[in-house]
């Protein structure tokens, strides 16, 4: 069965061009960039080229790019650095809908005596900037807010948030793993101090990430014991993946228009048709500015895991905000923070598209999902109650 892959916020296919770019750096050009000989030196040049390509996508300078092992490491490194830079400051601000890479780190710090403010979001997943402005004070070491939400695609007004935070003298970090490559960023015209991205979310392989650190931003490394990355991240470079990351950023730059055009059109059509064909749905974050590729749709009276398993039988890969799929017992913290009713949160499905998504794949979902929901509703005591009322 050929897969219909609509789970690109979880991970993406490695672009063939990216794979070809990295391929020689395993068995042939395996030198260590730090070596003095020509064999390592030629790899060093490719790593530098990759750094330049990442910088170009972000509108940044090459020396502001630090390669890491993943988005989670970048997030952890940014927050840890800030609290080491400002040992006297004991306050951190984040939001209730962050990725666990940020949220868990912050919550753990409360045990070390840190005060952590988790900003609320409204019913559409939007941030209240006044709440942010009121929360920042002289004790705030860092504010970490995601650029775009992985579950709903809701985009925060990060530039405005960064300006508010900078005025009050705290550091500003954003987890932009879902945004990079999907919406244009320009660090040259930005107030952001640090920004995380992840290779495997933009058609590079798993196991490589980047932390952008603005020139002049005080920084303390998370990994020590080597001069790599100008002392900001010790450890021999993951050369093949770094080179892939550079290529992926170059390719993403080329395709940026496609994300906001063709990909958005397909997402909008999927949303429109599913809403028309399936009664009792709601779009999570539908009233907010969203990434062009993400659709989070809640279907009442049914539970997400059953939907995913039946979609999977048809080759369709999506994900869910339901509790049962994650091994946790509560539905997604993002949907709960938005106040999405339990009845909807359990039956929420996320479709996330990419530039590899085709119209035929969208057609397949529009064809297959409505009968699946109908079948599960007929099986559900709550669905039957609702059907009986009709």
């Amino acid at each position, binding site marked *: 069965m050929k897969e219909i892959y609509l789970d690109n916020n979880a991970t993406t296919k490695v672009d063939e061009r990216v794979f070809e770019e990295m391929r020689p750096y395993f068995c042939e050009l395996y030198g260590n960039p730090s070596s003095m000989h020509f064999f390592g030196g030629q790899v060093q040049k490719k790593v530098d080229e990759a750094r330049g390509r990442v910088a170009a996508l972000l509108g940044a300078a090459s020396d502001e790019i630090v390669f890491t092992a993943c988005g989670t490491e970048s997030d952890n490194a940014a927050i840890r650095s800030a609290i080491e830079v400002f040992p006297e400051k004991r306050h951190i601000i984040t939001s209730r809908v962050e990725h666990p890479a940020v949220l*868990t780190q912050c*919550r*753990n710090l409360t*045990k*070390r005596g840190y005060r952590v403010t988790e900003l609320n979001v409204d019913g559409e997943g939007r941030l209240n900037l006044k709440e942010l402005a009121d929360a920042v004070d002289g004790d705030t070491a860092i504010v970490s807010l995601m650029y775009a939400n992985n579950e709903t695609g809701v985009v925060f007004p990060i530039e405005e948030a960064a300006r508010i935070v900078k005025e009050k003298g705290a550091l500003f970090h954003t987890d932009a793993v879902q945004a990079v490559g999907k919406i244009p960023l320009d660090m040259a015209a930005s107030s952001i101090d640090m920004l995380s991205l992840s290779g495997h979310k933009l058609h590079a392989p798993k196991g490589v990430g980047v932390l952008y650190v603005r020139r002049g931003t005080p920084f303390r490394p998370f990994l020590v014991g080597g001069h790599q990355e100008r002392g900001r991240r010790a450890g021999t470079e993951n050369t093949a993946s770094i080179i892939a990351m550079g290529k992926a950023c170059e390719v993403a730059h080329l395709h940026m228009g496609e994300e906001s055009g063709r990909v958005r059109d397909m997402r909008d059509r999927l949303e429109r048709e599913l809403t028309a064909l399936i009664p009792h749905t709601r779009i999570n974050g539908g009233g907010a500015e969203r990434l062009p590729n993400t659709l989070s749709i809640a279907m009442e*009276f*049914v*539970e*997400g*895991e*059953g939907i995913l*398993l*039946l979609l999977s*039988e048809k080759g369709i890969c999506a994900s869910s905000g*339901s*509790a*049962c*799929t994650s*091994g*946790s*017992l*509560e*539905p997604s913290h993002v949907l709960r923070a938005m106040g999405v009713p*339990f*009845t909807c949160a*359990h039956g929420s499905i996320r479709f996330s598209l990419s530039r590899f998504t085709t119209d035929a794949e969208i057609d397949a979902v529009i064809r297959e999902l409505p009968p699946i929901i109908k079948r599960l509703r*007929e*099986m*559900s*005591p*709550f*669905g*039957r109650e609702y059907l009986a009322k009709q």
Partner: protein
Amino acid sequence: MWDYTDKVKEHFLNPRNVGEITDADAVGEVGSLACGDALKLFIKLDDKKERIVDAKFQTFGCGSAIASSSALTEMVKGKTLDEALQVTNQQIADFLGGLPEEKMHCSVMGQEALEAAIAKFRGVAAPKHSHDHVETEGEIVCKCFGLTDLFLKKVILSNKLHTVEQVTHFTKAGGACGGCIPKIKELIAEVTGEVKKVAQAAPPVKLTNLKRMQLIQETLENEIRPQLWADGGDLELIDIDGTNVQVAFRKACAGCASSGNTAKFVEQKLRELVSGDINVQEVQG
């Protein structure tokens, strides 16, 4: 992805006995939309009202909840009511070739619905918990899912559960806010008979400083740390100053959101086994 057996998948994709029996002799309902799963079970009896001749179900829930409901209806058909009451959640899981432990609560839900239906038919109070937030006997332990001590003790005993994690997998208790984890530990201890040991080790009335320190250390080693180990956690004794005990949490407990509750649990145990005026303080060490 969950590692479901072929039989679970088959019963999920082709569930038996979905629907309702309009002239059912008994209907059992457990769960709610808020809990994330719910089961409504219909039973039809023979003319003598002894033997189950038909069973149907409606389920809101994940794949394993639907498969467990399907399995249950297949298993009870043809059984007398007394025979049906002997069906355990483990037998439901076995019928399906096993369930992932995280999903055992689905089989427990099946057993509960069956008990509720039969109890209702017989006109007696069901030995149930308030899964659906309607009240029943027993004291609520897990507020998030509305589970009582009586229900939890029954599941702990019949499935021979030893850790909080297992209790969560089988019942969901402790799986949301985690506030009831210390209480679940006590219930496990109570059911598995550790309570008796506790009684034997009743503390002397008057303690010298030396004796108190010795007793605190023994209690931490023999009673408290083994329970933390069971959940992948640990603690270290940092200092004892009179009745003030300072501990630092290690391993899973160190990063755990409910370590405040764990500290309370430690304090409660020490008060019970050493002396009533012990105070426990969590420190970073």
